[in-house]
């Protein structure tokens, strides 16, 4: 079965039709998706800015990352569920949209960036936890994360316009 066929089956499925045709549910899911930006991106950008040396400089890096991590994960879960519902409401159109494709690639890259950061330089965070001497790799990971997630938001917003239908 080709990917296109899978998307078409999804699009014809009961849940897809139900979300698409709902009057209140769709806007509520969309609003949830947008407002959860505050929780997810708000938390990640707080520690990214700390890594970049731009905010909370008197707070140890490990405090910022570890204490906000569960909240960012909670935000991410809501993002994925609400985003999944939005995708499900029109999978063929979404998958066809260049902004959606770029968005998915950027999310993957942001994930890889976070994974590498946690597996490498964050492992020896005790050595650079306090103060302004942030290793270049950590600083770079923070800036990269800020840029990648900003592109994700921009692509997500642009995707909603019917420029490619």
């Amino acid at each position: 079965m080709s990917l296109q066929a899978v998307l078409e089956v999804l699009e014809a499925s009961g849940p897809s039709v139900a979300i698409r045709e709902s009057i209140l549910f769709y806007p509520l899911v969309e609003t949830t998706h947008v407002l959860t930006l505050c929780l997810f991106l708000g938390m990640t950008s707080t520690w990214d800015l700390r890594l970049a040396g731009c905010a909370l400089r008197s707070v140890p890096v490990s405090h910022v990352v570890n204490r906000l991590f569960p909240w960012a994960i909670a935000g991410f879960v809501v993002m994925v569920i609400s985003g999944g519902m939005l995708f499900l409401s029109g999978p063929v159109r979404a998958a066809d949209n260049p902004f959606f494709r770029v968005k998915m690639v950027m999310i993957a890259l942001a994930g890889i960036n976070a994974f590498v950061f946690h597996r490498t330089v964050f492992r020896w965070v005790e050595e650079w936890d306090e103060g302004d001497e942030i290793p270049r790799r950590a600083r770079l990971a923070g800036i990269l994360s800020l840029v990648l997630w900003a592109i994700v938001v921009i692509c997500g917003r642009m995707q909603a316009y019917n420029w490619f239908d």
Partner: protein
Amino acid sequence: MILPVDLLPLFEWFEDTSVGVVIRESLWLFPVIECFHLLALAMIGGNILVVDLRLLGLGMRGQTAAALARSMHPWLVGGLAAMVATGVPMFLSEAIKCYYSPPFWYKMGFFVLALAFTFTVRKRFTAKARADRVPIQGKLIALVSLGLWFTVGFSGRWIAFY
């Protein structure tokens, strides 16, 4: 909308401003400004959340609410400035639509309340919150703040629907 004065002529004037016209006639200007409005939303939302969570005894408990609020303050003000700088041109491009949109009026009303609350009650309280334990007033302030800002964001999104 029941208002003491008829604001429609004013909104028609807004709609006719050159900024409004330029944005309205462009295919991509509104979406691009909207993207930055959303990025600023994440910034403000995160900022408010970090401090309000701390007032509730959650999140960054290793720091006092006073220290957090002080170091986050420039980002809050910067985020608000970016929010207004992107929100006003979007409004100008569709002022008459906004005039007839109930969510727009809710958003503006709650925005004024949220701003006033944040820069008076909340600011005064957090400046003095130097203890590890936050008293019950702090928790109430955090809940009111979260409620007010949530309503601003929620009704903002709904301008597009009504």
